[in-house]
């Protein structure tokens, strides 16, 4: 058996757990906190709430919100400059994947210098990062527990994956109450992202007995609660999604992802599409492509979603792709790649970029760019 490793941060989970933020920051030596978030969260009032918590504990707060949905290297560099100028210490990331990944990027540049692209790939970070606390506001990215940061390089039009144990935050505070203000679309996109994390990491070549239960648990919770959470904002369902997202995060952070995320990153880098919207389109085709390499595991996923089945393993594996597609269609998620990509001719180039993405490495079935093009064509 392959030697594996399981790394996760301290996780504080539960409704209202955000109130521990200031004391956590203080324990990490905070005097002047660097808060990274975005305008969407300002309008929900969460930014103000975090600031109030910090002010109450007499912690200074430098606020950085100059971010777009897919954070860019230039924005990260600006954030790092501000961090230095203001002599900040602890970094707090509040938001979905974007602000948290931006916070990771800023932390990297702050203590390692250089440009974000210098750290693309695995284990390129050589200096310790400032202490980090992340507060996810979407149940999806899992970035708050993962060792991944995805930053867009606008010049090359690619999303860079930076992978380092140092990107695992010191503390992740997951308060499901923060999820209720999200739109249906965002809840859906996040949950599909988390589901993709769970599925891809479950079938990953790096999956281990420590990541697999997390992945299956996440798949089960998302399948059971997605509809109630998206359509009714049921608080209990949202809490379950938050658990699922965190579990999926723990899983993919250690087991890695697959070609689905590699393609999604390539698409995101090129078209700035919402990450969570690309995944439901790709996921069924990606799974179908992977069946020859991990039929048993995909059948297990099928049983986790659909319950016990009398069908053969082959049938179960085929079924799961269809049932996923049906589930997404029922929820009204666009399911054709042509809805996102303006020109089919671009696909070849996108696949050539995706094949180099670090996320593609642990995919169970070896895939060259032509294989990826096949997946895209199927989803077109």
């Amino acid at each position: 058996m392959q030697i594996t490793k399981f790394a996760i941060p301290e996780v504080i989970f539960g409704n209202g757990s955000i109130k521990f933020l200031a004391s956590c920051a203080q324990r990490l030596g905070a005097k002047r906190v660097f808060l990274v978030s975005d305008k969407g969260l300002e309008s929900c009032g969460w930014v103000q709430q975090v600031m109030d918590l910090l002010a109450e504990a007499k912690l200074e707060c430098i606020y950085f919100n100059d971010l777009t949905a897919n954070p860019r290297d230039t924005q990260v560099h600006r954030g790092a400059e501000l961090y230095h100028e203001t002599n900040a210490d602890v970094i707090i990331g509040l938001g979905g994947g974007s602000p948290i990944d931006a916070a990771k990027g800023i932390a990297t540049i702050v203590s390692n210098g250089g440009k974000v692209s210098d750290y693309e790939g695995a284990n390129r970070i050589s200096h310790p990062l400032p202490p980090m606390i992340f507060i996810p506001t979407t149940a999806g990215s899992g970035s708050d527990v993962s060792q991944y940061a995805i930053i867009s390089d606008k010049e090359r039009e690619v999303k860079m994956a930076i992978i380092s144990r140092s990107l695992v935050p010191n503390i992740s505070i997951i308060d499901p109450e923060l999820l209720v203000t999200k739109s249906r679309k965002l809840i859906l996109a996040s949950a599909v992202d988390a589901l993709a994390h769970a599925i891809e990491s479950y079938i990953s070549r790096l999956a281990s007995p420590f990541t697999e239960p997390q992945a299956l648990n996440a798949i089960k919770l998302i399948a059971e609660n997605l509809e109630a959470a998206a359509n009714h904002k049921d608080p209990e369902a949202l809490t379950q999604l938050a658990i699922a997202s965190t579990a999926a995060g723990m899983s993919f952070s250690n087991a890695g992802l697959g070609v689905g995320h590699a393609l999604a990153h390539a698409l995101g880098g090129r078209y700035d599409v919402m990450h969570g919207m690309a995944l439901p389109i790709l996921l069924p085709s990606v799974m179908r492509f992977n069946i020859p390499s991990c039929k048993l595991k995909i059948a297990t996923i099928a049983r986790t979603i659909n319950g016990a089945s009398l069908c053969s393993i082959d049938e179960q594996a085929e079924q799961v792709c269809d049932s996923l597609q049906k589930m997404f269609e029922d929820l009204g998620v666009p399911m054709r790649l042509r809805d996102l990509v303006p020109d089919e001719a671009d696909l070849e180039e996108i696949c050539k970029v995706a094949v180099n993405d670090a996320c593609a490495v642990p995919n169970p079935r070896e895939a060259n760019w032509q294989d990826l093009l096949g997946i895209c064509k199927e989803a077109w």
Partner: protein
Amino acid sequence: MSSNTSLTDLIGIEHNKLNFFQELQKNIEELTTINLQSEDQRREIAAILDGVTDVMMVLSENLEIISVNHVFEELFPGINPIGKTCYSLFRNVDKPCPECPAFRAISTNSVCKETAIFRVDSRNLQFDMVASPLKHPDLTENRILIFKRDVTLEKEYQAKFYQAEKMATIGVLAAGVAHEINNPMAAVAGFAEGIQRRLARLDESVPDDLADDLHDYTDTILKECSRCQDIVKTLLSFSRPVAADFLPVDINQVAKDTLRLLDHQLRKNKDINLTTELTTPIHHVHGDEAQLKQVILNLMTNAVDAAGDSGEIKLQTFTEGDNVGLRVCDSGCGIPPENIDLLFEPFFTTKSVGHGIGIGLSTCYNIVKDHNGEIVVDSTPEEGSCFTVLLPIK
């Protein structure tokens, strides 16, 4: 680039979350090493600075003392100079000295030198000062490094050397002059004696009153010739080398010889009444005749200057216990009490420019000290002064 990423990279067994603690430990280690190095450097620099025997001070631009070396503490024990201005400390004045080299150093950005006399511990000490500007981009303000070297002794020796050189020059001159004068004098005296011998034979043929006149004239010529020869002899005694061996000396003879040299000067000040009281017989002292003559000469010259146009000068010799004494008293202006301590300092003088350089009494002091004797001054302002030289009988 990410294309190099492998499964092993993703597992990253050998990679872990880096902690600030590690960096801190590394920093502490580095700092400890650097600290040890800089401490070694500091000690070395301190040892070098301790080896400097000059007073060293670092001044701010407004001449406040920032730091001093240990020599300062030796020279000014018990004074904390930090924060004081150098002019208040050394001169006891409230504004910078006009000749201060520090200002010049900082304005010209060059090393400036200056010699100055400071009063330290009721002594006048002469210092060579070197001011170097300390201008450095890392320093927020300019500073000045001052070195002060005590050159009092050097200057004293230098003065003595000049004096000795002068005396030697006079000696050479005197020897030449004496030699040149002795011959014509011998001729003059010889011819005067010849006239006297012929007069004896002419007694019958010249009138008595003319013979008396000629006797009188030739006697005077002979007497004055003899006096000239004596003066010449005295001058020759000055031309002897300065580093002569100590010999038994008759102080009375020394006094008489010196007075003869001063004849002219005393006759110029016609109203000065000189009395001499030479005790005879008197013990010989062991010493250098030429040097002792210089002592009396200096004391007498000072007395003549002090007495002014009219007054009294008294030269005495006496025996007192185991000492032979020589005293020069004048009825002159006296010495103010505050100057009594300064009298024997080189270059201290109250005489106007061109009338003395303040070296006489310091030379006297050094000569008397070399003879294991002492020199005492007793003065009342407006009444006069007495200088007493005591030399041990050996």
